């Protein structure tokens, strides 16, 4: 096992540990930390694949923004954020887990079988894949692809971001600028004042 492989296995193991911790942790903050570990390890795996840009973006967007958002929400909810005990009975849990495990294992077996078959059938089986060009995964190459080949989806995604922003504003701002609320809260005091006056 050379250094590169060792790096891969360490990152992969950490990613799996992080993922398991994210799911299994009882304390939501620890779950978020597990997620962070997973994200960092996946960024490490991206680096091993020469995808430097993707690794940096993974760190900025997921670790720097999304996990922080999670932390934020958990902290705002406060101690109530800890998971309440699962009240479902053992049988239903076992059945649910069993269905998921069976379908997951089945899918995994199918995938591995097809992958093995493909690997055996491929003519260049066993040889290492060629190294990517030196500018692979950098900003220049990516930017060029984004603004030439992928211009259409790039522009379309601006609509997606736009609608997400408007949606967030619409949902978050609703309460303050809803005139019905103001009217409702204002009205009772008025009527009460009238009652008192009469």
């Amino acid at each position, binding site marked *: 096992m050379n250094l590169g492989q060792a790096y891969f296995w360490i990152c992969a193991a950490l990613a799996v540990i992080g993922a398991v911790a994210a799911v299994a942790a009882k304390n939501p*903050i*620890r779950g978020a*930390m597990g997620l962070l570990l997973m994200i960092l390890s996946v960024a490490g795996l991206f680096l091993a694949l020469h995808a430097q840009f993707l690794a940096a973006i993974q760190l900025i967007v997921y670790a720097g923004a999304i996990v*922080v958002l999670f932390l934020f929400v958990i*902290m705002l909810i406060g101690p109530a954020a800890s998971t309440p005990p699962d009240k479902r009975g053992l049988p239903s849990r076992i059945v649910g887990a069993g269905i998921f495990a069976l379908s997951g294992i089945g899918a995994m077996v199918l995938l591995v079988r097809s992958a093995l078959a493909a690997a055996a059938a491929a003519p260049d089986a066993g040889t290492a894949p060629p190294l990517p060009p030196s500018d692979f995964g*950098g900003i220049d190459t990516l930017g060029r692809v984004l603004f030439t080949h992928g211009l259409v989806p790039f522009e379309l995604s601006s609509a997606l971001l736009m609608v997400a922003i408007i949606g967030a504003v619409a949902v978050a701002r609703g309460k303050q600028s809803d005139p019905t609320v103001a009217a409702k809260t204002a009205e009772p005091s008025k009527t009460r004042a009238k009652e008192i006056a009469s």
Partner: protein
Amino acid sequence: MILWTVLKILVMVGFLFNVGGLLTWVDRRLSSMIQDRVGPNRAGLKIGKFELRVAGLLHTAADGVKFFFKEDFMPPKADKLLFSLAPILAMVPVLALTAVIPFGDTISPHQLWRHVCAPVDGHVLQVLDGQCIDIATKAIISKPLLVFPSAARLGISTVQTPIELQVAPLNVAILYVFAMAGQGIVGAAIAGWSSDNKFSLMGALRAASQMVSYEVTMGLSLIGAMMLYGSVRLEDMVRWQGDNAWGIFVQPVAFFLFFTAAVAESKRIPFDLPEAESELVSGYFTEYSGMKFGMFYFAEYMEVVTSSMLLVTIFLGGWQLPFLHRDGITIQIGETIYAAQRLPHIWVILFGVLAFFGKVLVMCLLQAFVRWSLPRFRYDQLMKLGWTVLLPVSLANIFVTGVLYLACESAGEGMAHALKAAGDVTQAITAAVLTFLPLWALYGFFNTRAKDKTLIGTSGDMAAAAGGTKTTAMQG
């Protein structure tokens, strides 16, 4: 190569730790100077008759020792794992960030350790394949001499590949910087959560929201600079500034935006809402003591250093000095060369490295001045400033930069020449400022008026001036 990498890491981390530590003292001394009091000057080392007390410089060491021996208290209901993890998470990203910062020009070893032929009568000699060859006859005359400082003489093979004075030359350098800066938030957030303390939680929430908000401005303020420099690699940015003009001249608005955002990122006054002592005890590290507190405290000072490094690299020309090029000094404005002096490679490199660290120190001092000059914002003012002032301004900066860049690009040859000359003029201005400032500082230092002296001196001096007290004898 590994050896060089280790050496580079040692330089960077050593600088970071030392200056970070020093800053804790500078900050306190500077505050006392600004507030017209004495400040810490007590800590001393006394061995027999010998007393060492360098203006209180030993306070730094004393603080460190204190942190290590102080009780490491942990609130009983704290989340043990996360409580211990948080200081590490706060400190590591700051250290990791320095990996991409170039602190000097690329060293070309074959220029550094020059093979020179000793002059022999009647021959004009040239070094070729490790031999001194007569240019005219192509005959091997003698062996060349290695001129200072010879690594070969010490048994180290002279590496012929260029050495970049940067720990990790990544091709996504700026993004790496933001990625690392973003990780710092997590440390503060979970420190506050795991302390099981309302004040800590509030501080953590404030810290996280503040850092997230200002990170946006921080990133967007650099877009204009990236457009001009045509690269996201920090070393390319520095080279561009050396060839043209320093970033502060071409992106003045971005400089102030980035500076503000960087101060806010390091959670220092006037943006120290997360640890505002009058409201939140001391924010997210209220419950921390001992070295764990020390790590937060120290990380904050190291953040000052790293943000200064980034400022210097992106806006203040990094290792560049005005008119100092790879081959020596060439004073050139437009097409006219006023003076030229070739310098050995090693001197150029050394000047560069010193210039970089010197500039960083100046920026650190500037940040310390800012800290003790401005009052703290209110929290809603902070958010308003970030989202409704800095962010729109940084967007406008991108837009204006783009338009101007396009206009200059399409204006033709004449414009390019004019811009080049303007760039040289900015170099001249920088050179003038760089000469004038230290002179002015020296003048100020030696020309202190007597009245000031009594105020800035020690309390002992003041007491002595007032006629002495019972304890003045202790001052000596």
